[in-house]
């Protein structure tokens, strides 16, 4: 027997060279060229752009084989969204009624002061457009430990405009601040939106992020929320863009010591929707509550990736997400709870419930626990099913037509979340929004 040929040598010879996925390769090149162009500018944001560019260049671009992108294909971006920038234009449509007395408007990522009502005293608005004289504190999206997704790096690397809202210590706002983000274009293009809210110690604020728009525009959004000690934050992320838009959003939340943060995400599926949410429980006594309603319609795709990291002792988090998928829609949910070794006394819970409303719909969900400490209480639960046949029969036997009965039951499914919305203006907006979202989802 010859033992000259070993399997290691043969394996090396037989294994095909790793084939870069053509799409990922192409998109990565587009993203890099975009970032490189932007990074060539020299202004107050240069340092951020350079740092982000370096990260972007080093990070592998997501492909079908990337675990976090297992269920989401970037095929929709093949139309060249990353090669053209959405025009900076005045809105072609009348803006919807504001949900709050103070509203800031961004169109395709650009701030429009003429359409905005400035927030009151105690809140400072800084534009992140490179005009600042003093260098700005690096945002979390650029920090090593912040948002670590390629699209967040791309956003930072190509940053042209954005808003920084700072609420001073001890200021309690009695009404919400709304940021309206309109994305619209005729041809495949992209825009980057950037929003950062900093709450001072002992302050209280409500932020409404509201995304609207239509056309084949990719909104690559980054939102950073950093709250001070003993502060209160209520945050809404309302995503009501038309079905032909694309949205890739990254959100990071860092609650301060003994602070309370509550977030509601209401979204409709569109051509491509991907949300990466990262919550860092880095201060003891903090509590974070994340809630969401997702409605998939038509042929849309909605992918939510939520990661909560408990790094310090005695912080609490809970999550409740409900998804409904109609027609041929696909809902993807990944909820990750990561408890670090030192995080004693952590309580963390996650619940994800899904309804499939039609035979062509698909739900892929993965609640994850990664725990390195025994003194914790963690749980997650997820369900997937359809509307209760008995309940449906009951309603129909009372003379309620099937579509109406289904709509009622779907409302009932998410009602606990609707009822929990703390602001009346948002709650009033949410009901008709859900109504029309469900109507669209029911259409086959």
């Amino acid at each position, binding site marked *: 027997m010859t033992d000259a040929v070993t*399997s290691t040598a043969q394996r090396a010879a037989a294994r095909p060279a790793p084939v870069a996925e053509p799409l990922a390769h192409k998109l990565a090149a587009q993203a890099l060229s975009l970032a490189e162009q932007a990074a060539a500018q020299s202004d107050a944001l240069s340092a951020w752009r350079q740092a982000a560019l370096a990260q972007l260049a080093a990070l592998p671009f997501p492909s079908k084989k990337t675990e976090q992108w297992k269920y989401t294909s970037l095929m929709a971006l093949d139309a060249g969204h990353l090669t053209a920038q959405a025009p900076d234009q005045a809105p072609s449509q009348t803006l919807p009624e504001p949900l709050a007395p103070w509203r800031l408007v961004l169109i395709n990522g650009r701030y429009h002061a003429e359409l905005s009502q400035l927030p009151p005293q105690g809140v400072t608005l800084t534009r992140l457009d490179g005009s600042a004289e003093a260098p700005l504190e690096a945002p979390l999206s650029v920090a090593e430990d912040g948002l670590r997704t390629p699209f967040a790096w791309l956003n930072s690397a190509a940053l042209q405009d954005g808003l920084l809202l700072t609420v001073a210590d001890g200021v309690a706002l009695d009404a919400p601040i709304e940021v309206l983000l309109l994305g619209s274009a005729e041809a495949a293009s992209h825009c980057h939106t950037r929003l950062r809210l900093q709450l001072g110690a002992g302050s209280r604020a409500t932020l409404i992020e509201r995304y609207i728009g239509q056309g084949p525009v990719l909104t690559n959004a980054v939102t950073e929320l950093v709250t001070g000690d003993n502060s209160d934050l209520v945050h809404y992320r309302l995503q009501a863009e038309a079905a032909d838009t694309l949205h890739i959003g990254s959100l990071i939340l860092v609650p301060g010591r003994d602070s309370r943060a509550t977030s509601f995400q209401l979204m409709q599926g569109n051509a491509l929707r991907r949300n990466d949410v990262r919550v860092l429980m880095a201060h003891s006594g903090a509590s974070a509550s994340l809630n969401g309603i997702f409605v998939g319609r038509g042929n849309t795709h909605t992918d939510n990736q939520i990661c909560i990291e408990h790094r310090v002792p005695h912080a609490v988090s809970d999550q409740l997400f409900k998804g409904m998928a109609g027609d041929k829609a696909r809902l993807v949910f990944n909820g990750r709870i990561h408890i670090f070794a030192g995080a004693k006394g952590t309580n963390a819970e996650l619940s994800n419930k899904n309804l499939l409303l039609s035979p062509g719909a698909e739900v892929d969900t993965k609640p994850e626990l990664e725990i390195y400490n025994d003194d914790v209480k963690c749980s997650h*639960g997820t369900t997937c099913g*359809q509307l209760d046949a008995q309940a449906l029969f009951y309603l129909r036997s009372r003379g309620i037509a099937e579509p109406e009965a289904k709509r009622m039951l779907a409302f009932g499914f998410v009602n606990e979340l609707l009822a929990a919305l703390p602001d009346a203006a948002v709650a009033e907006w949410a009901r008709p929004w859900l109504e029309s979202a469900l109507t669209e989802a029911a259409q086959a």
Partner: protein
Amino acid sequence: MTSQAELDKLIRGDYAAGFISAIESDTLPPGLNEDVIRFISGKKGEPEWLLAWRLEAYKKWLAMPLPTWAHLDHPPLDFDEVSYYSAPKSMADRPQSLDEVDPELLRTYEKLGIPLHEQEMLAGVAVDAVFDSVSVGTTFKAKLLEAGVIFCSISEAVHEYPELIKPYLGSVVPQGDNFYAALNSAVFSDGSFVYIPKGVRCPMELSTYFRINEAKTGQFERTLIVADEGSYVSYLEGCTAPMRDENQLHAAVVELVALPGAQIKYSTVQNWYPGDENGKGGIYNFVTKRGVAHENSKISWTQVETGSAITWKYPSVILRGDNAVGEFYSVALTRHMQQADTGTKMIHLGKNTTSTIISKGISAGRSSNTYRGLVRISPRAENARNFTQCDSLLLGDTCGAHTFPYIESRNPSAMIEHEATTSKVSDDQLFLCRNRGIDPEKAVSMIVNGFCKEVFKELPMEFAVEAGKLLEVSLEGAVG
């Protein structure tokens, strides 16, 4: 509360089955190439088609990258340091009865508490004992044959029942299924073959004990169980291995075929050497287990995993036929530096298929215990039903417990429920027990046993006892 020293002593609990029996072996030098495969095949006098099948698997394996997705951390494996064939020397002429078996070998079994002669009389269990790679003695064969049940080593089956082996070998786990399954397909040494004819209820529980005995020898078992229409079989697999420092590679494949109306119950107690408290030594266990369930059939996996330095194991069921049932009950215990990444896959293809997953993970020391599962509902699987519960118990603040369940639903009439919890041993329960004069170790042992009860009750009697004992040895002192 006990002192830390006592607790440590209990956690360390030396490996009771750690001894090495000195038997000369006919072992190949380490390394793998086509000649090695030809040698293995030639040694067994295999037919040409099987050699071709092995070589095809080897070619596929060569082109496959090493999987890295599991939540495991181990030094890279060198497949050229593993010896791929080892047979006890005295086996050159197959012994026709136990009397012909090397007495040293029999003593080994006795040390393990499974003397074959006694087993024959005990509880009607037939034992197909595998010592390293060659079947040593098979008991109760005649009795089983009377019922028409075939229970023999797979090498024997290749010669005697090629008409049964050919269509089913690789039908559930194809050669190129995954890295370790491909490796197994190329070099599998031996294993068990079971065939239950139509409508037969196997008259006894079938059992195989494995031992890995030759240092640096990979053990590549291949098990194939075919339950014909309307039949029933319960199969037990239990393992223990001598203590040693070299990492031993184990890549087994188990294939189950449940034809319409058949039931297969497959139980495992795995207690291979887990390595010492610093993670030195221990078995690397990469196993592919899968069953195909046809109409109205049922496949049930029950496993108690306490051994191995690395466990990579996902017993799965493909619910192909309508009304098929899949079950997975698992207790996985890790301590010292053990790492387990285990779980199941339930692939629902047929209508009205149901699956149940109960997984209990217990981690202590500096170990890492991961549940990884997949529940997939295909668009055709009307009214499919799944229930999953994964609970983790952490003993100490240096271990990890993780849960990664994948749930994919493409049929609205399917109902899927998944829940997972992670906690430590409840102080209240502990207090209650101590209140009644139960010492802490005993109390923890009771609580952990209660935690695992749902799984233990699925085990056949003989195994339930062994499983309870295994947990007791490794766990009870771990409360601090």
